[in-house]
C-alpha cells in the first residue's frame, strides 16, 4: 500500500510540475506576441546566443565532420564503398549531428547562463523591482530570450553544417586521398532540401527549448546562491534531455513513411 501511495504522490508531483511549465510557457509565448516588445533586449539576446556561441559551435562542428569522415571511411572500406563517405558526412551533419550537437553545446553555454542570470535576479528581488517599475518581466526578460533562441539556433546550425562538411572535406582530401572535385560533387549529389530543412526545424525547436528551460528554472529559483546553482543544473539537464527527446520525435515526423 505505501508503495502505491508513493507512486501516486510522485505522479501528482510530476503532473503539478508539467502544469506549471505549461502555464509558464503559455504566458511567456502570449506575451512574446503582444505589445509592447523590447527590440533592444531581443537584439542583445541574439548577440549573446548567436554570435557568442559561434566559436563553440564551430569547433564542435569541425571535429564532428572530421571524425565522421574517418569513421565512415573505416566502415565503408570493409565492403568497398568508400565513395559514400562524402554523402554520409553531409547527411549526418545536416539531419542529425549539426542540430543535436549545436543544441547540446548551446544548452550548456546559454541555458546555464540564462538560468543563473534570471535566478540571481529573482533572489535579489530584481524581478519584483521590474514589476514595480511597470515592466512585465515576461515581456522584458523571458520573451526576448525565447525569440532569440528560436531564431538564432537555426542560423548557428546552418553554420555548423557548412563547417562540419568542410571538416569532412579536409580529412577526405588530405588524408583519405579523395579528389577534391569528386568529394564536393558527391556531397551535393544526394543532398535534398528536406535534409537541411529538417535540421533547421530541429534547431528552432531546440533553441526555443533551451531558452524556455533557462528562463523557467531561473524564474522559479528560490533561496539564494544554492537555489540559483540548482536552477542552473536543472536548466541544462532538462534542456539536454528535451533536445534528445524532441530530436527523435521530429525525426519520426519528417522521415517515418
Amino acid at each position, binding site marked *: 500500500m505505501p508503495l502505491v501511495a508513493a507512486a501516486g504522490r510522485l505522479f501528482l508531483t510530476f503532473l503539478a510540475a508539467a502544469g506549471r511549465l505549461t502555464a509558464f510557457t503559455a504566458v511567456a509565448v502570449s506575451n512574446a506576441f503582444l505589445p509592447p516588445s523590447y527590440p533592444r533586449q531581443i537584439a542583445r539576446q541574439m548577440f549573446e546566443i548567436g554570435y557568442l556561441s559561434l566559436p563553440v559551435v564551430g569547433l564542435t562542428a569541425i571535429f564532428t565532420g572530421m571524425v565522421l569522415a574517418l569513421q565512415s571511411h573505416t566502415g565503408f572500406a570493409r565492403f568497398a564503398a568508400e565513395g559514400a563517405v562524402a554523402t554520409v558526412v553531409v547527411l549526418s551533419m545536416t539531419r542529425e549531428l549539426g542540430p543535436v550537437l549545436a543544441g547540446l553545446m548551446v544548452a550548456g553555454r546559454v541555458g546555464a547562463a540564462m538560468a543563473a542570470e534570471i535566478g540571481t535576479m529573482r533572489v*535579489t*528581488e530584481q524581478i519584483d*523591482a521590474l*514589476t*514595480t*517599475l*511597470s*515592466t*512585465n518581466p515576461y515581456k522584458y526578460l523571458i520573451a526576448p530570450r525565447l525569440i532569440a533562441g528560436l531564431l538564432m539556433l537555426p542560423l548557428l546550425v546552418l553554420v555548423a553544417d557548412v563547417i562540419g562538411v568542410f571538416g569532412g572535406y579536409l580529412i577526405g582530401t588530405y588524408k583519405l586521398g579523395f579528389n577534391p572535385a569528386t568529394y564536393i560533387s558527391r556531397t551535393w549529389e544526394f543532398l535534398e532540401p528536406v535534409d537541411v530543412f529538417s535540421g533547421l526545424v530541429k534547431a528552432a525547436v531546440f533553441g526555443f527549448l533551451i531558452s524556455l528551460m533557462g528562463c523557467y528554472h531561473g524564474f522559479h529559483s528560490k533561496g539564494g546562491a544554492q537555489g540559483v546553482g540548482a536552477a542552473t543544473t536543472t536548466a541544462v539537464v532538462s534542456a539536454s534531455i528535451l533536445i534528445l527527446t524532441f530530436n527523435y520525435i521530429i525525426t519520426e515526423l519528417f522521415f517515418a513513411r
Partner: protein
Amino acid sequence: MTPKIQLTDVHKSFGPKKVLDGITVDLPAGQSLVVIGGSGSGKSVLLKCILGLMRPETGSIKIDGEEVVGLPQRERERVLRKFGMLFQGGALFDSLTVWENVAFGLIQGQRMRRAEARERALAKLAAVGLAADVAELWPAELSGGMQKRVALARAIASEPEIIFFDEPTTGLDPIMADVINNLIVDCVKQLGATTISITHDMHSARKIADRMAMIYKGRLTWVGPAAEIDASGNPYVDQFIHGRAEGPITMELRR
C-alpha cells in the same frame, strides 16, 4: 475623503504558516506610516500584497478607493504607475548602468526618450547627493550606501504618489543610515507622497513616521501617532522599542 491606501482584514499564509492574519489599516494621502516588527513578522509580505507581487487569500486592498486584489495584468500595470519602491537589498539591475537603473521606469514604463530620461535621472541622482560621474558606473562598483541612494533615486524617479521603503537603513553605518533617513524625509515632503516604510530600526522609524504600527504574528497589535509610541501602554510595543529580550514577545529559541 477616501483613504489613499485601505486594507481590510487581509489574510496571507504560506502552507500552514499564517503570515498575515487579518490586517486592517487606513492611510490618508500624504501620510507616512512606519510598520515596525521583528524579523519574519510579515512586514515584507504586507508590502508585496499591496503591490500585487503576492495575492492575499482573503481581504480587500484599495488604492484610491479602487479594489486591487485580483486585478488583471494590464490593470495592475496602470495601478503600479502610482507606486515607487525601495527594496531592502536595493535590487538594482546589474546589467544596466546607474543612470539606466534610475531612468528605467521612465524609459520602459512611460516610454520617455532616452536623452530626456537621462536628464531626469541625473537630476534625481543629484537630489540624493550623487554626482554625475556616478551615472556611468555599474551598480556592482558602488558601496552599499551608494547603492541604497541609487535605489532611492530610482524609487522617486517617476515621482510616484505612493512610495514603499523596505528596511531602508538595514546594513548601513549609523551616519549613512541617518543620511538616508533625511533623504527619505526630504523626498517625501517634496513629492507629497504617501509612504509605508517597514523597519526594525527605531531611530529611523521615529524620524520618518507620522504614524506607527506594530506588527506581531501577522496582526497589527498597535497603531497610533508616532509621537505616542513611547506612551502606547502596549507591552509588545514597549518591549520592541526598548529592545528587551524579556517580555510578551518570545523568540523561538531552542535551549
